[in-house]
């Protein structure tokens, strides 16, 4: 396609790396055999001699001062070895935003106040889980109940109770705000022929990871601790656990066993991790906590519910002139990862399209509900649901095809996002063109029968953040590579495989870099005592790019040393490059002049009097703007059938074309896409919390409705390969972004089928029937 408005689009997108041997192959997951056999050990599976079982007492009221806690009966109960309340702990607050200590608003156990139903008040460790549960019921707490607020509006009312009255910097219930101002917004709107001004409400949903949170702590006689925990961020847990316990950081060793999903819900220190460690120290015995599904659904982190008002201006030809975007985030009782979501929601309000003027006002609001945190997309699903729905409204109003309207405004490679960064690669237009072709967009829009619809939604996402709110003094990603004379290598990294496949993908990157077989690489990952410092964890879709780059750094150092060996052995002219492939190191121009990888390592070891060949690699994004080193892009088309009488929506087919840079492992990318689609389906249609007076009523998977396997549509997808110069072998993220487009695409298709435009997720059968006049009462 020739794009006259936007000549930058006419270039072909391709990368220089075409001769790869391991990268780009669907290498099976390293963890798959163990998981398929049921042999993989998760934290809940682990048992240690003398281990105690922990259980938490949670607040039954949404907002109260604690008058008194009587633990005497619980402590005297046979089999109970320890009972703790906030008063027994060092009373140190924590939170992931260490750079701004006033945002650290959580205690491991409530000190004098509870702020939501489920807030952790006390913990018991006993010789078996039944005794622990029984003992919990024997703890008597006297509460002095306070007025509570359950919505953004209630929390912002003049006379609203202060939820965090102990934080001096706060005047009301807004914990943090963020402004973005680009261009002269008021002047820009003057140029608009069409102005849309819409209010949206987005709802909270659960990560619904299949493995509930669990932690097991083991003390040693010198007071050091090992914590096995179901986490996405071992280093963050190590740091925050140490600080809340008052220990040096390196007296805490965090090990991540197999983890059954995280999706953003396992990236902070949590009460049970602290309680396991603290009670292990007190009792001298290992202590394990395993949460129930009901605890997860009623008190676990969620995606932020938001109220968003968005005003967008268009010229008659479809050109966007300005956007004024205001978001209120329902944060629940604590900050959790809310500040980051507030930040990213603002950034993503201005993504995908060129906005000459943009204003963002974001407010993170405390309420007496379960805290919202990070969840797959991290502020972007909400922002882009609004953006994409308004693009579809505008297309209708301006009588322009929705895909054409997007192409006209699309961000392209080289575009600058003012105040943020320059986009180093963008396959967005190509994604739009490809998805239109694959889905037969134009033909279907013209020919679908009644009650069937087709719609589009798009996304962009970050490949890791450049921000350092955690305030780590160490590199964002680090690794050690050890090369051996038997031709194998060992990769040690703090990167956390939580089911997304990073152990496999990082192994592929190292195999490609060293030119050895993927099977010849051993991986040790996510053990803070055994792997180089540091790593911020698996979130923000950062692992492939950041850890991949750290691995390339280490591999290059190894290769430089081995190149010397080949150079000496064959007396190579200084202008010769040494290449690594097929388990060999050789002169690139004269491949016969070379030795096996193992021989090269052996030579290096001999010439260094027995020294082991190792190298450390690091990556920290420096001078990469404000948000991320690289953006992914994509477009998705959904086709639905709506039963006009019951309002039930069936998603029949979903077609996706997306740009995640170089695909390292196609099978893994496909898995991410299908998993993301499943989450997007639930977000759009069936998942929601039913909350009454702050209490979650649907606490089982019977009534918290994640889509079933049978609900999955037919799926077709295509990857637009761009080359991202900041990514390892040109790779970008494929983890979170794909969870974004499904809801707006389905909503658009439902509009196409029924005329109902959803500005209030989720799209329920009842909302459709009300919109179509079938239910009036």
């Amino acid at each position, binding site marked *: 396609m020739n794009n006259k408005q936007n000549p930058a689009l006419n270039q072909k997108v391709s990368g220089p790396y075409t001769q790869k041997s391991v990268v780009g192959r669907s290498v099976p997951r390293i963890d798959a055999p163990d998981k398929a056999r049921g042999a993989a050990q998760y934290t809940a599976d682990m048992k240690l001699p003398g281990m105690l079982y922990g259980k938490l007492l949670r607040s039954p009221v949404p907002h109260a001062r604690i008058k008194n806690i009587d633990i005497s009966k619980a402590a005297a109960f046979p089999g109970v070895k320890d009972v703790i309340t906030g008063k027994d702990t060092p009373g140190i607050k924590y939170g992931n935003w260490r750079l701004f200590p006033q945002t650290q608003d959580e205690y491991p156990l409530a000190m004098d106040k509870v702020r939501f139903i489920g807030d952790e008040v006390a913990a018991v460790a006993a010789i078996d*889980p*039944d005794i622990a*549960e029984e003992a919990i019921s024997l703890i008597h707490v006297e509460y002095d109940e306070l007025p509570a607020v359950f919505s953004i509006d209630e929390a912002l009312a003049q006379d609203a109770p202060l939820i965090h009255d102990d934080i001096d910097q706060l005047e009301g219930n807004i914990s943090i705000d963020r402004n973005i101002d680009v261009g002269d917004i008021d002047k820009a709107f003057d140029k608009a022929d069409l102005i849309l001004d819409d209010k949206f409400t987005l709802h909270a949903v659960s990560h619904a990871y299949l493995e509930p949170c669990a932690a097991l702590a083991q003390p040693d006689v010198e007071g050091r601790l090992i914590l096995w925990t179901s986490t996405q961020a071992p280093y963050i847990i190590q740091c925050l656990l140490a600080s809340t316990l008052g220990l040096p950081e390196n007296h805490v060793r965090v090990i991540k066993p197999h983890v059954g999903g995280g999706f953003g819900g396992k990236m902070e220190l949590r009460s049970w991790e602290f309680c396991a460690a603290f009670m292990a120290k007190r009792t001298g015995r290992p202590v394990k906590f395993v949460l*129930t599904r*009901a605890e997860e659904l009623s008190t676990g982190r969620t995606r932020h519910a938001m109220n968003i008002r968005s005003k967008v201006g268009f010229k008659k030809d479809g050109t966007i002139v300005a956007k004024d975007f205001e978001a209120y985030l329902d944060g629940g009782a604590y900050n959790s990862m809310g500040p980051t979501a507030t930040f990213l929601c603002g950034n993503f309000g201005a993504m995908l399209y060129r906005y000459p003027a943009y204003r963002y006002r974001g407010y993170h609001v405390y309420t007496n509900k379960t805290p919202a945190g990070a969840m797959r997309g991290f502020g972007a699903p909400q922002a882009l649901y609004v953006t994409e729905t308004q693009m579809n409204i505008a297309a209708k109003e301006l009588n322009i095809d929705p895909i054409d309207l997007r192409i006209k405004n699309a961000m392209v490679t080289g575009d600058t996002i003012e105040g943020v960064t320059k986009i180093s690669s963008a396959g967005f237009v190509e994604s739009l063109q490809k998805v239109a072709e694959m889905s037969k967009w134009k033909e279907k829009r013209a020919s679908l029968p009644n009650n069937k619809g087709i719609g589009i939604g798009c996304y962009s996402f970050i490949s890791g953040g450049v921000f350092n709110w955690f305030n780590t003094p160490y590199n964002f990603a680090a690794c050690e590579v050890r090369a051996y004379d038997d031709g194998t290598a060992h990769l040690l990294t703090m990167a956390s495989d939580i089911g997304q496949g990073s152990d496999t993908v990082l192994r592929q990157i190292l195999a490609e870099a060293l030119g050895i077989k993927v099977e010849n690489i051993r991986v040790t990952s996510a053990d803070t005592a055994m792997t180089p410092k540091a790593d911020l964890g698996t979130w923000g879709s950062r692992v492939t790019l950041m850890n991949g780059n750290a691995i390339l750094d280490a591999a290059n150092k190894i290769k430089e040393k081995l190149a010397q060996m080949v150079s000496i052995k064959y007396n190579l002219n200084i202008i010769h490059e040494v290449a690594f492939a097929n388990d060999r190191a050789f002169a690139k121009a004269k491949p016969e002049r070379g030795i096996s990888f193992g021989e090269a390592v052996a030579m290096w070891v001999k010439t260094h009097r027995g020294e082991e060949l190792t190298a450390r690699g690091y990556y920290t994004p420096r001078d990469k703007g404000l948000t991320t080193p690289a953006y992914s892009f994509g477009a998705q088309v959904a086709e639905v059938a709506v039963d006009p*009488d*019951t309002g*039930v*929506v*069936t998603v029949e087919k979903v077609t996706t074309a997306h740009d995640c840079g170089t695909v390292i492992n196609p099978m893994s990318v496909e898995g991410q896409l299908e998993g993301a689609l499943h989450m997007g389906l639930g977000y759009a*249609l*069936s998942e929601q919390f*039913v909350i009454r007076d702050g209490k979650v*009523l*649907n606490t089982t998977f*019977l*009534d918290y*409705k994640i*889509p*079933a*396997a*049978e*609900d999955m549509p037919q799926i077709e997808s295509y990857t637009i390969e761009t080359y991202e110069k900041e990514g390892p072998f040109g790779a970008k993220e494929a983890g979170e972004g794909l969870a974004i487009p499904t809801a707006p695409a389905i909503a658009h298709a439902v509009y196409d089928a029924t005329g109902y435009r959803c500005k209030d997720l989720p799209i*329920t*059968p*009842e909302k459709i*029937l009300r919109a179509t006049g*079938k*239910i009036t*009462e």
Partner: protein
Amino acid sequence: MALPKFSYLIPKSLKEACIMLAEHEDKARILAGGTDLLIKMKHRTVQPEYIIGISNIPNTDYVHSNHKHLTIGANASLTMVAQNPDIQRYFPALAYAAGVTATVQIRNMGTVVGNICNASPSADTATPLLVYDTKVVIMHPAGERTLALDEFFRGPGVTALESGEIVKELVLPLTSDRSGSNYQKVSPRSKVDIAAVGVSACLHVDEKETITQARLAIGAVAPVPKRVLHAEKTLEGKKLTEELINQAAEISLDEATPISDTRATASYRKKMVDVLVRRALNASMEQIRAK
């Protein structure tokens, strides 16, 4: 979540189970598939001291039929009922409902009799069994008694069973060749879900398609799954016209007293009674015509 403590009793016969139940009264519960009971116990909504496990009593997991009746034994699983050829032929709405109850694993363990004894207003098999004039054979230490299913449900989770009584089997009169029946359900998630509303119909007609007997039952819209007797009477003796369907739907709406809960609002449930009654009646007639 752990199960509370209990003693597990293993009777050798249903009779012995009755005796045990009579002895321990409210402190004992019958366990067949356990798919409802164990969850309630884990959530501490029931805490029996004794569990009387009947799943290994021989010859209780049957589906029998003769030329007049079909009988479903106390331990017949939902899967057995869904897959039984006689049930598929004579009681297609029941076969379908049993096959869309919960998930494969639960259908393999859970029993149809248990589904009835659990007395959930939304039980998938309840409305089909109601429209097939099912009789409940109840055993007690001194003998047996029989009760029509529409007298069996007394409230959410409450049945007509008295102390020492268990359900031995369900008896369904075979339907004729000139009959058609259908179960309709709607739920927030399109598949593998508990019914927000369920409706069953069963029509018998003469050779001129005049309705000789009509049965219509609604589920999850009242404290118990129930027949809409007034609508049944209105349908009988007439031909199934659009207008008659309207009348039946209207009467059913009057009979429905749904609540708003986590699964649906009352107004959505009311609307669905209207939609599903129409669909169930039309589908029943189509089935007759297809024979």
